[in-house]
């Protein structure tokens, strides 16, 4: 039984706890022994992307230590973006060989949820049932920087009853970009509006994504404008009908 | 040929080397590349497949392709000139096509480097320019014109229409093969490559207004490739 340490991510821990819960339940359903290293905090991406690399190093060291102590085979998180940051720590320690080595070992164990299910567990049909019409938002960091393109679609294809509709401009960023969305809200809102228009145009009732940050951004705009599109994380969808009573 | 002047070079190169953290180094560096994908493109294509690619791509870039044997070249050109309706024609000599003399009612002149002003004036007012390609690429339906003594860089450029005669023997898969030949002419310091090379792929065009394709901006509006199979 693979030992998995959950990397919950801040957004799913606090704003979208159902995502973290679904991740745990789904991994357990797939036969993993899931632990929760309670000392984990944030991956540090907001500081890193804003140029505060000294600060990010402190956070990175804390996260590496925390997950080392967890002594798991794998570290799995429900966010391509946060996982990318965790896998990228070695960049911060170019001049610090000891920490660089630890960062690389940490990176090698860290996986995004759908990538872990498809590539490591080698499962494409998790046994989920979810009769709905949905479309999928491909997150930039997950698709381009982690290179996970196929896994989410392969998993969703096997969900019983789920009809996936294509999304125009699926490659376009939703406009979140972390601090970008509050530093340049004028531009960010143009980007999310184009995304919202594509979603409405797709005919889907549900928007599925694999990154809570993008979903918070798109969902926040949909809600503000009163569009009745439900926003769900892929962990929640894959956990539908799987949830043991 | 008198060598040209070189000004301010020493300090300029020093600044660069300094930034790179070393002294100026003028020993030729070894070029060791890990990748060389260009040799694989169209590598196993047969002659017929290359021709087929050339024809297909030419059509896509708005270029007419006419094929003939050398015995029919005069007649092919005459018909093409009639079709294009050109009144004034200028063409270049080429050792490979000695017997060529198209019979046409249009005014016909040869580019003559010994009469520069006259030749330039003829090129400016010509409706059709006729050239003979030094190489052709299947992948991109490109023809190559070397600037050489006695040849013209402009009769494939100034007239409204350009007809390029292509001996089939000069067709290669892509630019890779010609680039290799050109480099071989210079790599020992001989500087034997032509003083100018034009790689031409179809008519002049622009997409500067609303990304709409305008065919024929400064250069030829129509281009025809006459592919001669036995040359």
């Amino acid at each position: 039984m693979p030992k998995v340490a959950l990397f919950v991510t801040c957004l799913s821990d606090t704003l979208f706890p159902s995502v973290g819960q679904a991740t745990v339940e789904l991994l357990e359903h797939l036969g993993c022994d899931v632990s929760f290293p309670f000392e984990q905090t944030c991956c540090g991406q907001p500081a890193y992307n804003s140029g505060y690399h000294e600060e990010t190093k402190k956070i990175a060291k804390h996260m590496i230590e925390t997950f080392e102590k967890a002594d798991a085979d794998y570290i799995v998180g429900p966010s391509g973006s946060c996982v990318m940051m965790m896998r990228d720590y070695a960049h911060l320690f170019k001049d610090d060989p000891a920490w660089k080595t630890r960062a690389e070992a940490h990176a090698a164990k860290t996986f995004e949820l759908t990538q872990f299910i498809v590539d490591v567990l080698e499962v494409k049909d998790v046994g989920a049932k979810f009769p709905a019409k949905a479309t999928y938002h491909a997150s930039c960091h997950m698709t381009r920087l982690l290179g996970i393109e196929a896994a989410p679609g392969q998993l969703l294809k096997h969900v019983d009853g789920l009809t996936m509709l294509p999304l125009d401009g699926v490659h376009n960023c939703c406009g979140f970009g972390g601090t970008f969305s509050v530093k340049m809200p004028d531009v960010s809102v143009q980007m999310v509006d184009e995304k919202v228009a594509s979603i409405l145009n797709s005919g889907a009732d549900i928007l599925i994504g694999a990154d809570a940050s993008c979903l918070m951004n798109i969902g926040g705009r949909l809600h503000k404008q009163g569009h009745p599109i439900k926003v769900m994380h892929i962990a929640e969808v894959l956990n539908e009908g799987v949830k043991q009573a | 040929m008198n060598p040209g002047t070189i000004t301010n070079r020493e300090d300029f190169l020093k600044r660069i080397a300094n930034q790179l953290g070393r002294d100026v180094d003028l020993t030729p560096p070894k070029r060791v590349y890990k990748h060389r994908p260009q040799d694989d493109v169209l590598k196993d294509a047969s002659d017929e497949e290359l021709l087929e690619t050339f024809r297909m791509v030419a059509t896509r870039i708005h270029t007419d392709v006419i094929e003939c044997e050398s015995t029919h070249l005069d007649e092919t050109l005459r018909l093409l000139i009639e079709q294009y309706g050109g009144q004034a024609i200028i063409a270049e000599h080429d050792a490979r096509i000695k017997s060529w003399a198209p019979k046409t009612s249009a005014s016909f002149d040869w580019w003559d480097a010994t009469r520069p002003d006259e030749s330039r004036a003829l090129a400016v007012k010509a409706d059709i320019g006729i050239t003979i390609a030094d190489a052709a690429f299947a992948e991109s339906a490109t023809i190559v014109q070397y600037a050489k003594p006695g040849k013209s860089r402009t009769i494939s450029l100034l007239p409204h229409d350009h007809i390029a005669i292509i001996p089939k023997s000069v067709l290669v898969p892509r630019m890779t093969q010609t680039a290799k030949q050109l480099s071989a002419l210079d790599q020992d310091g001989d500087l034997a490559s032509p003083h100018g090379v034009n790689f031409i792929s179809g008519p002049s065009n622009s997409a500067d207004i609303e990304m709409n394709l305008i065919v024929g901006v400064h250069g030829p509006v129509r281009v025809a490739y006459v592919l001669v199979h036995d040359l």
Partner: protein
Amino acid sequence: MGIRLDEKFQTRRKDGIDNPFMREAVSSAQDRLRGVRLYAAEELGDWEAFRDHSEEIRQHVLEHLDYYLYQLSENISKRGGHVFFAETPEEANRYIREVVRSKDAKHIVKAKSMVTEEIGLNEALKEEGCTVVESDLGEWILQLDNDPPSHIIAPALHKDRNAVHKTFTANGYEGTNDPTELGRYARRELRKDFLKAEVGITGCNFAIAESGAVGLVTNEGNGRMVTSLPDTVISVMGMERLVPSYEEFEVLVNMLCRSAVGQRLTSYITTFAGTRAVGEIDGPEEFHLVIVDNKRSGILGTQFQSVLQCIRCASCINVCPVYRHIGGHAYGSIYSGPIGAVLAPLLDGYENYKELPYASSLCGACTEACPVKIPLHELLIEHRRVIVEEKKQSPFVERIAMKGFAVTSSSPLLFGAAEQMAPFATSPFTNAGQIEKGLPAWTDSKDLPQPSKQTVRDWFKKRGNAE
């Protein structure tokens, strides 16, 4: 460097966002160019191997830039051309003015060149009393209108056919707004300039060191006109724009054409080496190559060196979602989009361009599209790091917030406390579980779920205890 509009970046962005025609033109151009570029990449076969090869070529040249510039200048000189190395725009312009004066030239035609925009050559030549005509269709439109370029490949992308029609009509045109008819007018008018010009000026896509040649990539044929007809030709190149031989030239030209416009090769790839040969009529009798540094050497040997790999294809601009909505003028630099956001602060300092590195959601589309594998979004983060850690120019409030964030996020106790606090701190702004106000930069346009009173870790702990 080039254009620097007077208004603040925020105002320039707003001008872009409020310009519906520009946005329609840019988004449809982006969508179209994306499609043709992906097709062209797919068709080539092993695109990633071509990217790897292009990257290694560019890196090799930069590592040996002194040698290749030496070799290029030697060979151009042997082929009868003059080479002038210019550290600054002023030096370059002064030399070019001297050449023009020595020829007693009054009419100059130019082929499109970003580096001459960068050094402000046209203004310098006007001071010399010359008429300078831009012969690229897009550039000519802008010149007639006194408008700066908004895209490095399609400079007039922000104008529609009606705007062009208006500009041409003011110049004596009597036809319709049909693009082909407009194009024919430009052909007739500019043909006169080509034939009249005493001096032609070009940029340089890639110089070829081993052959002493300059290479131009064009579609319209103006590059050929400018280098074939005038007796004197001057080419201006950024010092990094060269390749060792025709073999590397071929690879990069292919990548440039496919990445920029999705063509296998553009209509004209033109190389010319020094002066025309004996027995030739066409081509320059006198040739000058001006090699411009303009702060590029300062980038060499730094963490930003890879930006000098750029081949100016604009594919990063064509996929950038920020450029898509604000357009090229908003950047206030002749280099816009991601490449502009990286390059402008390096060429012209953080004082004027320190906001540009933040004009990115770091979506990575630029890095993915780049044919020479410049890690553009990483360089944007590196700019931010320099601004924060070296220039110490980040806003005070942000600095405090980030320090606090780091302290909290490296302490499980504080982090836990912050998580517990969040639902209470936000409750005054909350309606039915959604925060609707209170964080104007966010809540003016988007709602936000209220932080949950039970975090996942609470749930997990409870669940563990229950089991």
